[in-house]
């Protein structure tokens, strides 16, 4: 879809050239977790309309372009929406009622009917938060983080809120899972080795593998559509910037995709795997941008 967005191929992070960036929003309002629809025609994100009390999920048509529109009429916060592989449904993180401390549920939204169904909640126990859902490529299961057992761990679940599987067992914080489109790995952030680093694990909870080892934090992983690369945010150079890690060459240093001095975070891949979309304050507010990373994913042939 990058061509339809009018992007030019550029990778200043590697070439030192002035990057060409596509800017998707211009209102400067806080944006949370942008993510593309599978067909690349829509971009979903949450936006803070009134500070913490009104963070709502939006979908913005991209082809053809149009203004962002809300998905629900809820008054309580909702965010981290992610399209199912078929594009018809979305998983959202929702705050079920205002003023509670630590209660976030996961809900399934049928975009055709508008029906919103809670699929994972605190399971009748103490208040807990379930968040940052990510779909398995077959659309049958999803992964997320939860504190319902007293520590933030990674889980997978079927849509019926049954067959809950806990993948991680660490006294630290495990968060922000990203299910590889290949289906074989789930990448996530963890502080089990000190500060936040990236790790991956099989969907059955085996074969924990450390992916990064850097000063500063590495977080918000997103796996490319071909499963070969991970885009993530890191402040290893003291500012928050987007990097891309080559899973086929895990010892190679991650590449920074932008040289801008602004704060960049929450990366996600374009559906064609040739661009990384992220949130940046480079123009003053927090807006959504895409940078072309063909030169990385094409093994330098771009």
């Amino acid at each position, binding site marked *: 879809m990058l061509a339809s967005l009018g992007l030019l191929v550029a990778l200043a992070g590697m070439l030192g050239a002035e990057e060409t960036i596509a800017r998707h929003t211009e209102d400067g309002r806080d944006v949370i977790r942008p993510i593309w629809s599978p067909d690349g025609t829509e971009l979903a994100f949450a936006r803070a309309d009134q500070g913490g*009390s009104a963070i709502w999920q939006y979908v913005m048509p991209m082809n053809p372009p149009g203004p962002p529109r809300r998905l629900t009429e809820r008054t309580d916060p909702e965010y981290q929406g992610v399209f199912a592989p078929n594009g018809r449904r979305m998983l959202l993180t929702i705050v079920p009622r205002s003023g*509670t401390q630590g209660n976030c549920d996961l809900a399934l939204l049928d975009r055709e009917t508008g029906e919103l169904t809670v699929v994972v909640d605190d399971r009748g126990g103490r208040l807990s938060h379930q968040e940052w859902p990510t779909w398995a490529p077959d659309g049958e299961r999803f992964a997320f983080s939860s504190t319902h057992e007293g520590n933030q761990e990674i889980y997978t679940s079927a849509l019926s809120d049954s067959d809950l599987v806990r993948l991680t067992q660490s006294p630290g914080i495990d968060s922000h899972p990203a299910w590889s489109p290949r289906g074989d790995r789930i990448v996530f952030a963890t502080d089990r080795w000190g500060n936040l680093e990236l790790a991956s694990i099989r969907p059955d909870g085996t074969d924990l593998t450390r992916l990064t080892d850097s000063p500063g934090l590495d977080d918000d992983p997103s796996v490319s559509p071909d499963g070969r690369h991970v885009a993530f945010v890191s402040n290893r150079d003291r500012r928050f910037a987007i990097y891309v890690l080559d899973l086929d060459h895990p010892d190679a240093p991650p590449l920074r995709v932008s040289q801008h001095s602004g704060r960049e975070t929450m990366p996600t891949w374009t559906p064609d795997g040739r661009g990384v979309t992220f949130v940046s304050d480079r123009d003053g507010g927090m807006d959504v941008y895409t940078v072309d990373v063909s030169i990385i994913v094409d093994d330098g042939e771009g």
Partner: protein
Amino acid sequence: MLDLGATSGQTCRGPSRRAVLRIGSLGTLGLTLGDWLAMRSLAGPTPPESQAKAKAVIVLWLWGGPSHLDTFDPKPDAPLEYRGPFDSIATRVPGVRIGELLPGLADRADKFALIRSMHHESNDHGVAGTIALTGSIAGAINLGGATSAGALKPSTGAIVARLAERRPGALPPYVILGNPLHQGHKRVVGEGGGILGAAYDPFRVDYEPGVGPVLPDVHLPEGVAADRMAARWDLFESVAPSGADARSTAAMAEHYALARQLIASKDSLEALEIDREPERIRRAYGSHRFGRSCLIARRLVEAGLPFVQVNWSTHVEGPEDAGDGGWDMHDRYFAIMQDRHGWMFDTTLSALLDDLDARGLLETTLVVAVGEFGRTPKINDKAGRDHWNSCYSALLAGGGIRGGTVIGASDRRAEIPSEHPVHPADLSATILDLLGIGSAELTSIGLTPMGTPVQGLT
């Protein structure tokens, strides 16, 4: 554009003073240094040990309680369930490390001092807020509604306001950017005059992103014009009590009178018109409410106001707050710190320090950043941190503060002070001392000095 509600611009019955507010014209706004010195001379002789180093104070009130471990007192060697996911980073000052979410402040550590041994007696937001703002638990109201014994003491800002007094036509010397503090649905006491009286309550200004500066105490409901407000005022005057309540009524009258003047004098409110600032300055502070409020605070101080407080939020919790969301993050704490609060605080405070410094104001403007308490060193079962009054940190910059200084220390898990415990009463006494307000001045207005100025900061 300043929002004064829907007004007709009419003046109302009563004194026809003009609220004159001109940037760069200190004498018309409030207090000049000459006024200040004159005021102090009226208050009594200056103790020889007390020399005013600051002419103004900006308090950044981090409502809800930021974690000291993830900001100014990191514990990288503590167990995982204490230190959390954030690393510490070196600063410009050798041997001083702060949280990795504050790289801008790390680069400016030579401009500020840290107190790492703040503590007090309550972990209830309302009570802790009162203690932190007034230095005393007296009159504090907890979440359950119970009131602590004793008369409510004035806030530090109210003491300054009392000693400064106000000239006719000038903005009050004590301004808070933000609405009254709340814990849930309960209003928190301690921002105002307390036993000094409502006359020394703060004058409130707020900034609404997308709208601009607003005056909460002046804002008129849509469709209510100034003449209708005047009618309400006339009604108020007709039923005004006398005797014991007359003083508070007089204070309310003062606020109303000022509101009328402001409504009639929109053009006089230049200090609030941040659109006059260059784009690079506005961008440096940030477009969010806290950033814009800090920019207004700088303009107010530059215009001569002696005490400005910026409330980060109205409510302690994010989902309750229509602003930037408070610091009371019992859950999802680390995500919110990383995605919002950390960088917002870092970039805005860095911009404020740079801006004051560039204008030659930092030397005489004390900047204090502090909340009502810290947060539990041990991470809770919701990936968050809870209230912790036994140990927390404060930042002080400018106004005579020696940059790069660290006062006090906490133990290895940041649970209790291990050196030089500092109570909010001591912090208040420090602020007042830097302004040249000591025991003589306090007793002259009927107050009993409570704290002791912290040594080693200047």
